[in-house]
């Protein structure tokens, strides 16, 4: 009964959690890599074999052609399936994703590297904005839950949560570039400006990012407001809030107790939300002609650039895995119950 205060093996618990996440993430990356390997091999008319034969016809020796194809796709065109697979995985381990076919001579990794910033930054901005907006509105919707305004906020949340991201993007574009043209229709930046740290270039970047970031924000705002509302309602019913009031705590403290307890469970959805936005980037970048990973993936499919396609697919997956781990670490850092290994 008068059990001693339990020891807190914090370090070990956190390490175990992180190790588990990394393990699962690696398995997922392996599965996705395997899928993309087999898909590239299964594409009608086997592009790898096709390339190999084209090079042979151009008069290359089988040896040269084999090496050239291997450079392009990251695995050998000849040999057994198993041999090809091992070869492909080996290249992956060395972060070698082959070369792009549509822009010859350029490595897939460098194409992906320059595209990644155009996806990661807007996704992060959109996540942050929608989180702040959704959490604030969620608290408001919870406090006003019996009124008309609360109903309206909740319905707007459900609708935005339910509507696909491209509908939001297209509607925003239709409104702000066609009907009331105050924002640029597409592209990441105005070509008139010299890239660099100057006001014109940065201003143009921000100006062009308004619509994509707004789309990312609205796409995940609905989920946040709904989750936050139900969390706040639940915590409001908890005894410790009433207890804090009865102890005469200042409103600021009571509100902080409420907000922190209600926000905490949201971190478990954070990873899901970021994953959704990464997937949504495909539509958003297509609509706004934004040169990120999603557009790279779609373009690689229409230009039949399979090495690039496999690479972009893999990197988007890795992005989601990393977001998962980061979200869980944030959660662990904030919740003392998880930190002490209670629910680990």
């Amino acid at each position: 009964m008068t059990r001693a205060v339990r020891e807190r093996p914090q370090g070990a618990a956190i390490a175990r959690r992180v190790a588990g996440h990394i393990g699962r993430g690696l398995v997922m990356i392996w599965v996705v890599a395997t899928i993309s390997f087999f898909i590239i091999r299964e594409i009608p008319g086997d592009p790898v074999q096709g390339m190999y034969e084209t090079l042979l016809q151009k008069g290359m020796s089988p040896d040269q052609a084999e090496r050239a194809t291997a450079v392009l796709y990251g695995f050998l065109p000849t040999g057994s399936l198993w041999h090809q697979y091992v070869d492909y995985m080996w290249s992956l381990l060395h972060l070698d994703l082959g070369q792009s076919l549509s822009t010859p001579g350029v490595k897939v990794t460098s194409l992906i590297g320059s595209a990644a910033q155009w996806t990661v930054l807007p996704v992060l901005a959109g996540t942050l904005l929608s989180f702040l907006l959704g959490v604030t509105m969620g608290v408001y919707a919870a406090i006003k839950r019996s009124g008309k305004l609360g109903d309206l906020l909740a319905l707007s949340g459900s609708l935005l949560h339910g509507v696909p991201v491209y509908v939001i993007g297209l509607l925003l574009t239709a409104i702000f570039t066609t009907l009331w043209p105050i924002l640029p229709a597409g592209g990441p930046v105005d070509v008139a400006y010299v890239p660099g740290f100057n006001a014109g270039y940065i201003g143009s970047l921000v100006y062009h990012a308004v619509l994509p970031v707004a789309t990312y924000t609205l796409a995940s705002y609905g989920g946040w407001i709904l989750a936050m509302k139900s969390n706040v309602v639940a915590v409001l019913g908890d005894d410790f809030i009433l207890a804090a009031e009865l102890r005469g705590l200042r409103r600021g403290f009571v509100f902080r107790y409420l907000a922190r307890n209600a926000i905490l469970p949201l971190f478990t959805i954070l990873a899901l939300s970021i994953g959704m936005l990464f997937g949504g980037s495909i539509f958003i970048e297509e609509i706004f002609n934004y040169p990120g990973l999603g557009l790279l993936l779609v373009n690689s499919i229409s230009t039949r650039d399979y090495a690039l396609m496999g690479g972009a697919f893999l990197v988007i997956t890795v992005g989601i895995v990393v977001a998962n781990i980061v979200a869980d670490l944030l959660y662990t850092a904030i919740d003392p119950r998880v930190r002490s290994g209670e629910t680990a």
Partner: protein
Amino acid sequence: MSRDSAAAPGVRIRGLTVVYKTPAGELPAVSGVDLTLAPGTITGVVGESGSGKSTLALSLLNAVQPPGRISAGSVEIDGLGDVLALGGEELRRARGRKVGYVFQAAQNSLNPLKTIGKQLLDLGRSHDVDDLRELVRDAKGLLARMGLDGARVLDSHQHELSGGMRQRVGIMLALVLNAQVVVLDEPTTALDMITQATILRIIREVHEERALTTLVITHDVGAVAEVADSLAVMYGGRVVEHGPIAEVLGGPRHPYTQGLIRAIPRLSGDISLARALPGRPPTLGTLPVAGCVFRERCDRRMEICDTVEPEPVTHDGRTVSCHATGRPSPAVKRREYA
């Protein structure tokens, strides 16, 4: 520890009425309750669930939660005035500093995300305590007084403490600002027997050391018998009987109190002697509007009970609200209870 006012304050509840808003209109959960807590005593309030005892407890801090509302009455506390007339900052400062409130143990009255020590500091800052170090020292002293390692407890989160430890932390937080009126709402419910006994002993000892005026709400007559000086019995939102505890338990006058005591099974003796009270406890909706609220379950019901609500009558320091008391009554068996 500074003890500015050595004398414990008295508490006078007068005509307290609390109504709850329901689809069927506003229904009273507490109606016209008069109750005086003598300075320096422990008053127990017992009653079935739904009798309005928790609502009464919350009224002492003017903290009845919606859809409830205090519609009439006053709660005078010496040195503070009418709590029900307070509002805003004044009320907030009175809570915690003048009147301490201890929650039921099983329900969690502590923020799960903060250590006890940090919550103690939040409490101190909320009440403009200048010397937070002294506050922590006081808290450790109180926890040690209750048999806990203060430093470790302050460094713990709620989930690292057992139910009995949490309850002691709750008592510490209610007392650390030197509140002299303390309300304990079901302090031992959901605790095991041994912890219950420890908590009750602590309540009694701390009460005497600190010259407090204490109100203990419980449905457990046995628990209250161990600590209280006087006992108030609630039924259907009314205090039907109030008096020194030994007298109320030894010679109950209200038929409900008599039934309540008959219903207690004894450890020694025939279990079949314990008789449950017939009928069901009333709810807000089933409470009679006129007449005595207990008449449906009463074995001494008279004609007048259907139409006239009995007034509380005080006699020899005991207050009873019943038309039948004072008239010849069937002898109550098992008077030996004390």
